[in-house]
């Protein structure tokens, strides 16, 4: 009997933790999402009326921010993939004895706060940074153009912040490829580009899928980059939820938006994995 119970006993702490900090809040959030203000009550006082129209109202009111969230997250994911793939490839196959050192460098940004790093980007892209004057000098942007408080800054910040989430799974996947299969491909009449398309990329697909999900999902719900590097015109759905909850104290709308975001991400991710699981994405 004792032998059978042991695994369940070992699972108990994890279950209790998830129940308290995941299941209960989700249930609470679900209840909140269909509440309405108490007539004549104070700000922040709501009662349960099962008003599911909250969802429709919340969505219609914030369509623009939803669209922007997914667009920014998509661009950041694509950029991160383009930066990370050659990086992960080089670390896996070309770095020799510097492999571990380079991996530490990839993770090194995590040693400081996410917020601090994002604020640092504000300075990098600001008037006093080197980027803006340089771009002005070589004529890529005009004298009047600024980079802070733009969609560009938000997407750059997101790309940067989520880069390690793309690089690490890609590295893990590429590192597992037997270099002899690449030699075999060359031996069997495939040039470098064909070898990449027919052997390297398909074999690294698990890393591509994991990396894009780990980047896209948090990026779609992110509000820090938009808050620090953006303007009212670059507001994402995360910013709306944040202000509804903490500033306007409109709990039902914030909760409804949260659930809508979760559902949207779930649908997109499911479609993506289905496609990635059956055929090559590229």
């Amino acid at each position, binding site marked *: 009997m004792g032998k059978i119970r042991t695994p369940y006993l070992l699972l108990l702490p994890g279950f209790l933790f998830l129940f308290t900090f995941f299941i209960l809040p989700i249930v609470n959030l679900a209840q909140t999402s269909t509440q309405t203000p108490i007539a004549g009550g104070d700000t922040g006082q709501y009662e349960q009326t099962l008003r599911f129209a909250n969802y429709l109202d919340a969505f219609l009111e914030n369509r623009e921010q939803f669209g922007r969230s997914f667009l920014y997250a998509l661009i950041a994911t694509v950029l991160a993939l383009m930066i990370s793939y050659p990086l992960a490839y080089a670390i896996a196959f070309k770095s020799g004895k510097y492999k571990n050192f380079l991996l530490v460098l990839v993770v090194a940004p995590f040693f400081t706060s996410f917020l601090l790093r994002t604020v640092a980007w504000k300075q990098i892209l600001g008037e006093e940074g080197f980027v803006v004057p340089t771009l002005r000098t070589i004529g890529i942007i005009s004298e009047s153009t600024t980079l802070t408080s733009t969609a560009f800054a938000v997407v750059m910040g997101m790309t940067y912040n989520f880069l390690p989430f793309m690089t690490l799974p890609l590295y893990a996947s590429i590192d597992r490829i*037997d270099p*002899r*299969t690449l*030699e*075999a*491909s*060359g*031996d*069997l*009449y*495939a*040039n470098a580009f*064909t070898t990449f398309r*027919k*052997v390297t990329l*398909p*074999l690294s697909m698990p890393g591509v899928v994991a990396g894009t999900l780990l980047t896209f999902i948090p990026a779609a719900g992110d509000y820090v980059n938009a808050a620090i590097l953006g303007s009212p015109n670059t507001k994402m759905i995360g910013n709306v939820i944040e202000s509804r909850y903490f500033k306007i104290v409109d709990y039902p709308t914030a909760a409804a938006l949260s659930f809508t975001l979760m559902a949207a991400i779930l649908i997109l991710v499911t479609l993506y994995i289905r496609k990635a699981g059956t055929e090559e994405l590229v």
Partner: protein
Amino acid sequence: MSFDASSARGDLILTRITKEYGDFKAVDDLSLTIAKGSFFALLGPSGCGKTTTLRMIAGLEEPTVGSIHLGETDITTTKPYQRPINTVFQNYALFPHLTIFENIAFGLRRRGIKDVDAQVNKVLNLVELPHLAGRKPTQLSGGQQQRIALARAIVNRPALLLLDEPLGALDLKLRRQMQIELKWIQKEVGLTFVHVTHDQEEAMTMADTIAVMNEGQIEQMGSPAELYDNPKTAFVANFLGQSNLIKGTISGNDGDSIVADLYGQKISLPKHRSHAVDNSIYAGIRPEKFRISLLNTPVSGNVLGGGHIEDVSYIGVSTQYQVAMPWGQELIVFEQNDDGVAPFKKGDAVNISWEPVFTFALRGDEDVTAGSEVNPEVLDEE
């Protein structure tokens, strides 16, 4: 400069090839011609440069000095995918994401060949695995993967097929079976095979010509029988089978024969089997060429007296003796168990005799242990 050499055909000619990695010379001024249609083996211990030589032929490494020709075409700097050469890799290197069919079709598709289905099915039948076409490589046993790796290479009908320790990962029984099959397939398809191995038995079973490599150079090249019967160096004598090497001095001439003095006892050997440069020699005799006889038995040929049996190992088909000689050396003797005579016993006083034609002579300044310390059974990952 690289260009498409895919239509080149003919003998493979390596001319004064050297490959250096920093200060280390993996291959040292090696010249070699491999005849079209032959089964050629590069044999040597790990680190002798045989795999590096193979990789230069495949185009995976570029020689530091020297040139490689296929017939009239210089392919020294041609990219691997532009050479009419295919490789069966050590550990096979099959594409794990593709089916067996697509693995074999890979080379055909890259070259835009039309009847892929027919050609793939033909080689699948040749290696007797047509039922595995739809499987993935991980679902196959080692022996099956080995055959698919071979099929993936020969389906392209290359001018040259390179085999890099192709049987190294298989167990002994399967290895024997594949040796016979590979030989048969080579005859069947009529391609030039270049086989790299550290296993002397494998090389001797399969190859028409063997080049024995040591420290980046070819020690000796010839048919298996030539190399075994008349090795030119102690390395070859020890690496291919076992040899008894006895120190001696040339003391005279007798027509086509040389007379030599081995610790005071005279023997003779044919002149053409001596590779000595002066009077100092090592006389070499293979263990199975020796005969053992008790002291009062008449003997013919070369005779060395004064031995006694030190150790007896019964191996079924033969009995292996170690015979201690008066000068302190122990000679190894294999006797076939085919005459119903009871084996000799430990301590018996014996003479050793053999036919003079089986004797070979090496230079007296050779290192007699060369090639005997390397353990050919250790699989290396060069």
